């Protein structure tokens, strides 16, 4: 679960990582108070989780109160209800660096990544200037030791007081990585100011989804999702993604779901939504169908080949959901795996045809979507 920038910065501040003076504003009327507190010029930053905020105009600078008001209103309008702005003191930027910690699965360690080329996406740096990325592996049982942090800073070319500040910052960042079971902690840009201070101008903290149960500080809430459906699905523990195509996918197992998604695209079809209800979720077929119906698909395609996800249970739930929800679009199914010998009859009772082959089912769904569009 990715945290909002203002939450990441709260964590930074608590652990001693310098951040710009800032205030969270949830209403245009609160802006004046915030400006008084942080001063001008200021940065106004939309608190949304999508990437590319700068390019989308969701981060703006203002040098007068009037300008700040106009820009804040503009951003509020484009991000919609319930979203906040972070108003921050603008920094005197001398240069921008990059610093992050993530998981390194091959050796089973944490990995510090740093670069003197900050402010741009790190993938871009990796692609164009891979030699500009400094890496330092950290053994989780020992943790990051001060010499490791110093090494990173010297590799980056920092000296004197800047190197000391940078090392302290990295030690704190590692502390957060460890304490909050993070998948990623990132400071980009890490600003070196004209006056020689290092400040975290932006912050990203993603908590590992598998660790949320032991990270009670950040409970799941509607705020973290773009739509009600996505939130409801997440609360049920069902992976759900919405697209703007025609075919609603309900599949068991993420590996199979990804392949069905590929096959639909290969065949010239398009996907309306993606629900994966396999493994421990296989008894949630009816809920998955309700969610899928709200994405307004032209065709529903159900494909499973489960082990734990029993085919007979899935077929039975689906038949029940069809009876109750009365969908007005065609449904194509290939439901196989444990218990499959009972599936043909169960589906027949709900007026559905039993298809045995994944690729045939995908083709049929694409064809029906085409007909429905005419």
């Amino acid at each position, binding site marked *: 679960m990715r945290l909002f920038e203002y939450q990441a910065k709260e964590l930074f501040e608590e652990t001693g990582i310098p951040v710009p003076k800032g205030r969270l504003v949830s209403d245009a009327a609160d802006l004046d108070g915030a400006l008084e507190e942080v001063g001008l010029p200021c940065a106004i930053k939309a608190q949304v989780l999508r990437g590319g905020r700068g390019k989308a105009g969701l981060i703006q600078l203002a040098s007068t109160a009037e300008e700040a008001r106009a820009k804040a209103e503009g951003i509020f309008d484009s991000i919609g209800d319930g979203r906040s702005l972070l108003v921050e003191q603008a920094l005197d930027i001398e240069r921008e660096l990059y610093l992050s910690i993530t998981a390194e699965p091959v050796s089973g360690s944490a990995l510090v990544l740093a670069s003197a080329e900050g402010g741009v*996406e790190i993938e871009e740096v990796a692609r164009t200037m891979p030699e500009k990325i400094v890496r330092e592996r950290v053994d989780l049982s020992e943790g990051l030791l001060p010499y490791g942090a110093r090494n990173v800073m010297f590799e980056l070319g920092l000296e004197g007081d800047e190197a000391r500040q940078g090392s302290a910052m990295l030690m704190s960042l590692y502390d957060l990585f460890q304490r909050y079971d993070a998948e990623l902690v990132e400071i980009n840009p890490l600003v070196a100011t004209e006056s020689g201070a290092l400040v975290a101008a932006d912050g990203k903290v993603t908590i590992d989804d*598998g660790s949320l149960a032991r990270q009670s500080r950040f409970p799941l809430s509607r705020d973290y999702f773009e739509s009600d459906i996505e939130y409801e699905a997440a609360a049920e523990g069902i992976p759900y993604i919405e697209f703007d195509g025609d075919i609603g996918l309900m*599949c068991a197992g993420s590996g199979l779901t990804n392949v069905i998604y590929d096959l639909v695209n290969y065949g010239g079809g398009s996907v309306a939504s993606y629900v994966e209800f396999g493994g421990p979720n296989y008894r949630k077929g009816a809920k998955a169908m309700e969610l899928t119906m709200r994405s307004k698909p032209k065709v529903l395609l159900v494909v499973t080949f489960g*082990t734990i996800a029993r085919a007979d249970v899935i077929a039975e739930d689906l038949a029940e959901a069809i009876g109750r929800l009365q969908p007005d679009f065609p449904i194509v199914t290939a439901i196989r795996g444990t218990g499959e010998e009972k599936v043909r009859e169960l589906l027949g009772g709900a007026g559905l045809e039993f298809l045995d082959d994944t690729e045939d089912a995908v083709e049929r769904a694409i064809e029906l979507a085409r007909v429905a569009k005419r």
Partner: protein
Amino acid sequence: MSVIIDSATRVLVQGITGKESRFWTRHMIDYGTNVVAGVTPGKEGQEVEGVPVFHSVRRAVEEFPADASLLFVPPRFARDAVYEALDAGIQKVVVLCEGIPLHDALRMRRAALSTGAMVIGGNTSGVISTGDGAMMGFFPYWIERVYRPGRVGVMTRSGSLTNEITARIVEAGLGTSSIVGVGGDAVPLTRFAEVLPLFEADPGTDAVVIIGELGGTMEEEVAEAIEEATFTKPLVAFLGGSTAPKGTKMGHAGAIVTAGKGTVEDKVAALEGAGALVAGRPSEVGELLQTVLAKVG
């Protein structure tokens, strides 16, 4: 023949008294697996499907030495249970559950590397040796069109996709030696390239199918093993996720670790560059296998 387990392997089941665990223990025994003991703290003296239960792995192996342990434990207890098995000297551990905390997985990976034990999982159906009637995990082996003994080794990151692909192998008139689910987690505790030498050495395996997907570098490591000729048998790959929208799941820094690796496109290029065959669709897997096996003769 098979890899990792066979019908002689002495298997311990940790968390044996749970409902799902009882169900699959019965099936493992029916299939021919040599389940020697079970462990659930606090339940020593009970029996599950005729298998004696002990408080701890240490007490179980004192009476019934075991070669391998299968873990039916919830993700939050996975680390404890894996370390308990390693501490008792067990060299093969299979952990099935999905949702192991990331940092726990990193620590387990490190522990496995330093002890030299093979820990497989998480988020997997486990390992089945169809060639020699033994299984650790949950595979519906009674579905004959999916599970048939033969000479093709399978390694997979996805349980649901395994059924889809092994059905194609059987459809082509072939069968499997062992199916090894390395699992779908971000930190697989054993990687494809670490299973490969076992299939290379197994006289019962003529070719290997890998079922991979986007993300990580496991498929690229397989390509390296072929290039370095540490793996010399024919290999067919099927990879999911080639049209997947760029995931939000993986943070930027996660994507950069793999710098230029990780997309299906790159994986296909690496594998084909090394001489492996890559199936574009599930239905192509059988035919490609027939082709490579015909060449071997």
